């Protein structure tokens, strides 16, 4: 991993609004060319909404309430729908969580991959089909000539996710957003799919935003990690630093709650730590969203939103308490 400097995506103070509250607030992060950034957090932390907001595919009830997302000199948050359509599938590809339901059941996989090539690269039917076969081969589906004419129900879960990946990378995007790409797959297939994404990302020199709640995945595949809690970024670091020196109480809780063989943490030796309470407690208007569940919390935590501090180069944390104590 060599540090690349150029940012291809720069998200600044992104907020997503529902009717009565903001599930994502003032979220900032950036992705550099060719790097894999992991967005980590539990269910309800706003990571999937963030991904959908970048694609401008938020459900009707949600909207981007503020901030910007600069992607190759253009603000994704303010592009017109027509301009956005040219970005989707062409400059940014996306893979979803459920390979079982994310493919159209009545169209052949070849047809579904061809579609992207035909709208963005203007290929005719025959050329697009030929290219689809190559793409199936690229994502290592055996017998692509035959598979290209099959329907999703004739493929296994892992193969379907490979088809989704082939579709997402068909136009060699600069950025691939993978929203929990392996959650629905079994463990051996998970590793294969992640390895495939990692290889493609290198071969096609594309950056990846990997959304996951699996810390094992983060440790193995990410170059940088953003930990989210209740729509806020609480900590950001490279995985080595994050695992060896977690700062935010929430990150510490997360790591304590997950068995990691490499670090010698197993449920056989000692009980796994539990974070008390639930994310549902993060409903206050101001202050640190994690404070109700935090054993370090002080009255000042609830008074104002915690600033993002940078106690070490590249390691940011939204908790003044730990920084003060550590310093």
């Amino acid at each position, binding site marked *: 991993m060599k540090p690349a400097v150029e940012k291809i995506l720069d998200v600044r103070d992104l907020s997503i609004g529902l009717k009565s509250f903001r599930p994502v607030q003032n979220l900032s992060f950036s992705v550099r060319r060719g790097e894999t950034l992991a967005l980590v957090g539990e269910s309800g932390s706003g990571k999937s909404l963030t991904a959908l907001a970048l*694609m401008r*595919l938020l459900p009707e009830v949600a909207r981007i309430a503020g901030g910007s997302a600069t992607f190759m000199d253009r603000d994704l948050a303010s592009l017109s729908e027509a301009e956005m*359509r*040219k*970005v*989707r*599938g*062409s400059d940014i*590809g*996306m893979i*979803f969580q*459920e390979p079982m*339901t*994310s*493919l*159209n*059941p*009545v*169209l*052949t996989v070849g047809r579904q991959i061809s*579609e*992207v090539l035909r*709208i*963005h690269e203007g290929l005719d039917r025959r050329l697009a089909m030929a290219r689809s076969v190559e793409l199936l081969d690229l994502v290592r589906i055996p017998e692509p000539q035959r598979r290209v004419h099959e*329907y999703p*129900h004739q493929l296994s879960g892992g193969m379907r996710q490979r088809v*989704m990946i082939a*579709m*997402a990378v068909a136009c060699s995007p600069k950025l691939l957003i993978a929203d929990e790409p392996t959650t629905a797959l079994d463990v051996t297939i998970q590793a294969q799919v992640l390895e495939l994404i990692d290889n493609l990302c290198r071969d096609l020199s594309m950056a990846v935003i990997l959304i996951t709640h699996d810390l094992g995945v983060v440790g193995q595949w990410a170059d940088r990690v953003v930990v989210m809690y209740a729509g806020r970024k609480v900590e950001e670091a490279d995985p080595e630093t994050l695992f060896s020196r977690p700062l935010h109480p929430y990150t510490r809780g997360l790591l304590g709650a997950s068995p990691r063989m490499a670090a010698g943490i197993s449920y056989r030796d000692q009980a796994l730590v539990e974070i008390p309470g639930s994310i549902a407690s993060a409903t206050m208007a101001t202050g640190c969203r994690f404070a109700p569940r935090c054993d370090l919390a002080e009255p000042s935590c609830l008074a104002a939103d915690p600033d993002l501090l940078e106690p070490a180069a590249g390691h940011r944390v939204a908790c003044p308490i730990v920084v003060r104590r550590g310093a």
Partner: protein
Amino acid sequence: MQGRLPDIARLIVRSAFHAVPTILVILVANFFLLRLAPGDAADVIAAESGFATDEMMEGLRSRFGLDLPILEQLQNYLGHILRFDLGYSARFNTPVIDLILQRVPGTLILMLSAMAISLMIGIAVGTFQATFAGRWPDRVIAVVTQLFYSLPGFWIGLMLIVFFAVRLRWLPTGGSGPIGVELSGLSGLLIRLKYMVLPATSLALFYVAVYARLTRASVIEAKAQDYVRTARAKGLSQFKVMTGHVLRNALLPVTTLAGIHLGGLLGGAVVIETVYAWPGLGRLAYEAVMARDFSVLLGVLLLSSIVVIAVNLLVDVIQAFIDPRIELK
């Protein structure tokens, strides 16, 4: 797709075999059911002439074979059917097959145009409603379709006649064409179309309402599917997402229902054909009932059961083509 052709051929052959006992049961059951109605063809003819002696009645009955024991009548009838002979109409004094063939085109045209109208308008309206689901255009249309759904076909027919034919004089009140005029070419076709507008519309309105409601629900459901989000993530336009992905899936249940309805349309046609004096099978069946002309009625029933079975088979085949998940067994 090509790989399914042998399966489809097998399905057709097997369905044809299954159809034989079904049709036989329909014929036998109807044969006995019809005998439950009071009176026979001889009674009706005698009643219409206003006078008949017992000898004349006997003569009529023995000519039509009505004096034989009922099982023997059935045996005779089935024997004729096996030789593709539908019998002879007591009322019209014509072979039944001629009567039916004469009326089939009228009914088919009426049914198919009503089906085409209701599918086209129903799907368009339902898709439009789904696009505006919950907002005022959806609600206004929902009231209108509810109206079409609940009003009886004959009443709609009569009201359309009163308004468009009697009041506005735009369209003819009934019949299938002007009397004593040779129709040919484009102008002839246009005149025929004019005669078809009201009956086809009256027959279609109920089904327009059904398909609009089904399409609306089905499109709303399909729009929420994950693959639609995938399609949008590929950069497809709203229109392409709708036609290529949403409708492609949402119309599967509509096709199924339309197939079932095609049989039902035959029944609905009876009423509409009577209201509009349209020379079709439905009216023939109605006239046959009134005249106790059972061989004609059985002929119509035989034909409609064959049509329904054939249509069901056709729907199975079409479904297999549009939904690859359906296994042809």
